[in-house]
């Protein structure tokens, strides 16, 4: 198994965040080709490449662009989602810190394709050093005439502004991200209207993930067909897989789609650490339902296989759990995360996640009964699908899977049932 070098080509090169080094290694070579193409042609290439959004939802990028209404007398905005906050996900950080010019070049391509002149990069507040590196790269690009009034001496203006988040996972949700840029709390909007029609400042807006944008220069340079040679038909190209948890060599690996999950864990990440046994794999970030070792054995790293296994490809952040992990404690860790990050806007998520957390604590405290375990399981169904955005579902989906696949571990923590429950039943009274 060998790593691909589409996104990570410059990761190992020293000072690749500097413009001179980046340029020496191929940065900004697509600009002439880009500006000699028609905007529609660029969109076609991206559509044909099969590139799907790398943030987690996997929506085809070119198709997303084509939803922009035509002939509107309003500016079009590009919002780049660098809010990477899903537990188990740490791939975009590599691009931001090690090859920011790849991202900037991708932004130039995307802006030109969608006829936008203003891009905002929404970077999570915690990425402090990454933000500084990115800002330096942007400043360099401005100085070199790669950004600003005449990008690459063409009559095309592009301005990039970094907007810092402030510690809120929900801002990775695209409409919450827009709200946050507008100066509000990051609370998702109801859709419709979709951002492509009414997004940032009520103008048409495209929101793309960092890795999606960073994939563009290679696609423009080498063409859609070349990109499709990587991966499989339903999932073309490469992905930055982040492997973490109980493995020997955690890290980010660029691989084509479609490889067997366990092979990747074993061959790239050195397998389960300390010679221990595998207990489960969270395949694409914390919101993806867990796979048991048996399920993991048949799963491949692409959207379709993950869907067949009733989970999701997500962000491709693979978290490996060894045999020592307490599943009820893991469940609590996940619920605490989502409860902490619930924006507080809509009732089921606002009230429900805190309730679930407290019940889990009760179970772990040895103070719960079967009805409590059943209640937390039922709440997964009651909350999911009733909310404005999918944050609540991002919690209930993995929790449901944990409760169903490892139920005996939860049951072992329950209080013994009262000796004769029937004596309390009213029917028994005379």
């Amino acid at each position: 198994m060998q790593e691909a070098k589409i996104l990570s080509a410059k990761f190992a090169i020293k000072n690749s965040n500097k413009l001179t080094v980046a340029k020496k290694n191929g940065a900004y070579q697509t600009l002439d080709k880009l500006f000699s193409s028609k905007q529609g042609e660029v969109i076609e290439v991206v559509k044909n490449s099969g590139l799907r959004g790398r943030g987690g939802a996997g929506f085809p990028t070119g198709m997303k662009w084509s939803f922009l209404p035509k002939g509107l007398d309003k500016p079009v905005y590009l919002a780049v989602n660098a809010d990477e906050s899903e537990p188990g996900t740490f791939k975009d950080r590599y691009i931001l810190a090690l090859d920011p010019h790849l991202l900037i070049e991708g932004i130039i391509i995307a802006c030109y394709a969608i006829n936008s002149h203003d891009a905002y990069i929404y970077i999570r507040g915690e990425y402090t050093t990454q933000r500084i590196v990115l800002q330096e790269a942007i400043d360099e690009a401005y100085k070199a005439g790669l950004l600003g009034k005449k990008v690459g001496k063409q009559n095309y203006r592009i301005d990039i502004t970094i907007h810092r988040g402030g510690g809120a996972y929900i801002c990775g949700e695209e409409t919450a991200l827009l709200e946050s840029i507008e100066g509000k709390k990051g609370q998702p909007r109801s859709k419709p209207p979709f951002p492509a029609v009414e997004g940032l400042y009520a103008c048409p807006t495209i929101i793309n993930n960092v890795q999606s944008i960073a994939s563009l220069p290679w696609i423009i340079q080498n063409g859609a067909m070349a990109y499709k040679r990587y991966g499989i038909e339903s999932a073309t190209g490469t992905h930055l897989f982040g492997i973490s948890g109980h493995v020997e060599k955690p890290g980010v690996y660029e691989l084509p789609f479609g490889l067997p999950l366990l092979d990747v864990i074993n061959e790239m990440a050195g397998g389960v650490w300390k010679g221990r046994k595998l207990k489960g794999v969270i395949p694409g970030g914390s919101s993806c339902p867990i796979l048991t070792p048996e399920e993991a054995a048949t799963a491949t790293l692409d959207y379709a296989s993950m869907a067949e296994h009733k989970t999701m490809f997500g962000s491709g952040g693979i978290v490996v759990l060894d045999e020592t992990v307490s599943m009820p404690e893991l469940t609590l860790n996940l619920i605490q995360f989502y409860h902490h990050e619930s924006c507080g806007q809509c009732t089921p998520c606002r009230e429900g996640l805190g309730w679930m957390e407290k019940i889990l604590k009760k179970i772990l405290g040895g103070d719960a009964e079967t009805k409590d375990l059943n209640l937390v399981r039922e709440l997964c169904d009651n909350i999911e699908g009733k909310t404005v955005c999918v944050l609540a579902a991002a919690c209930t989906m993995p929790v449901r899977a944990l409760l169903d696949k490892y139920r005996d571990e939860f049951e072992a923590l329950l209080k013994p049932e009262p000796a004769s429950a029937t004596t309390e039943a009213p029917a028994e009274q005379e």
Partner: protein
Amino acid sequence: MSDRSKLIATGKPFKFDKKYDTEFERLVKRYPSRESMILPALWLVQEQEGWVCEEAIGYVADRIGTFASKVYEVATFYTMMNLHPVGKYHICVCRTLSCWLRGKQEIVNYFRDELNLTPGKTTEDKKFSLEEVECLGHCGSAPVLQINGEFYENMDVDKVKKLLATFK
């Protein structure tokens, strides 16, 4: 999250100093709406003071020309805004998933046992404050700490000990 609505007043009026005033004016031009400056302005406050006091929230609202309630909402919503003074070294320990799997709790216990420092608290000498935060996006090098913005990866108790010794 816990309740963050109780703001702390310093009793002194807040104002950006020259450096942050200039930065505010530079940034405000980059947005079509002044309200977009709420979060960036709060960041500037925090860079200048280390935390965000009640007076600063009022100042930001008036400077931008918006309701104080909106800035108040934003300040309490985004948990990176320190709404109380923090230590000279503000230590954030990632508590989520991969960091939890790889032993973040031992590090938190170390702070508790050795420095009498629990999450949300500051040491008496105001040198260290501790916070447990959600996923810091460094799962591949877990467990991770972030101290005054700098990341410290692949940590364990020994490394933490050595690291703290370097902080004067």
